[in-house]
């Protein structure tokens, strides 16, 4: 119930391509779904987040698509750049405390 399942584990994309990372959850009490970006040796940093009353949110090249009925959400990175190479984590939260993180996706964008 508390898990957030994330796929794929790793992803290689050509520069300019679209990167897509998927997450699924079970707990319908989750009410906030952030995506974090983590570079080696650094802590996770918030990239974009969505609430379940919205089906899509776009910020620059980053878009979250949210399917409440399927209990799935995904991150799309348009025009992927080598600087986007990092590990991406989806997460879910209920109320105002602890995040439940996915297992992470290591993205590599080839120049």
């Amino acid at each position, binding site marked *: 119930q508390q898990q957030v399942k994330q796929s794929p584990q790793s992803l290689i994309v050509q520069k300019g391509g679209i990167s897509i990372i998927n997450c699924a959850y079970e707990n319908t009490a989750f009410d906030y779904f952030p995506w974090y970006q983590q570079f080696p040796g650094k*802590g996770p940093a918030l990239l974009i987040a969505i609430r379940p009353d919205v089906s899509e949110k776009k910020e620059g090249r980053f878009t979250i698509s949210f399917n409440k009925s399927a209990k799935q959400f995904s991150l799309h990175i348009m025009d992927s750049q080598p600087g986007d190479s990092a590990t991406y984590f989806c997460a879910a939260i209920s109320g*105002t405390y602890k995040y439940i993180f996915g297992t992470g996706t290591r993205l590599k964008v080839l120049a």
Partner: protein
Amino acid sequence: GAGVSQTPSNKVTEKGKYVELRCDPISGHTALYWYRQSLGQGPEFLIYFQGTGAADDSGLPNDRFFAVRPEGSVSTLKIQRTERGDSAVYLCASRGTGTGHNEQFFGPGTRLTVL
């Protein structure tokens, strides 16, 4: 303004020793979290403080782990009788209140290695 800071950045210790990891949250943030991140995994929740009190310590793996936040600002995660399985990156995050209050800001972590 300064972000969340954690010290030390790296800690190497021997099995059975005691360690303390420190977190300085963003000034004014009342909520503080500790997470543990094992290699290739997402962060796992350990404990959450609201002010000085531990509001949720359900993620602490056993009684060798303990955390304090005596003045509602700096927090210390304490691990007794360390084991090799405790090796991980320990992340601290803080959260403010008001609009966007769900966002947690993470520090760079302390990499703990137990030999």
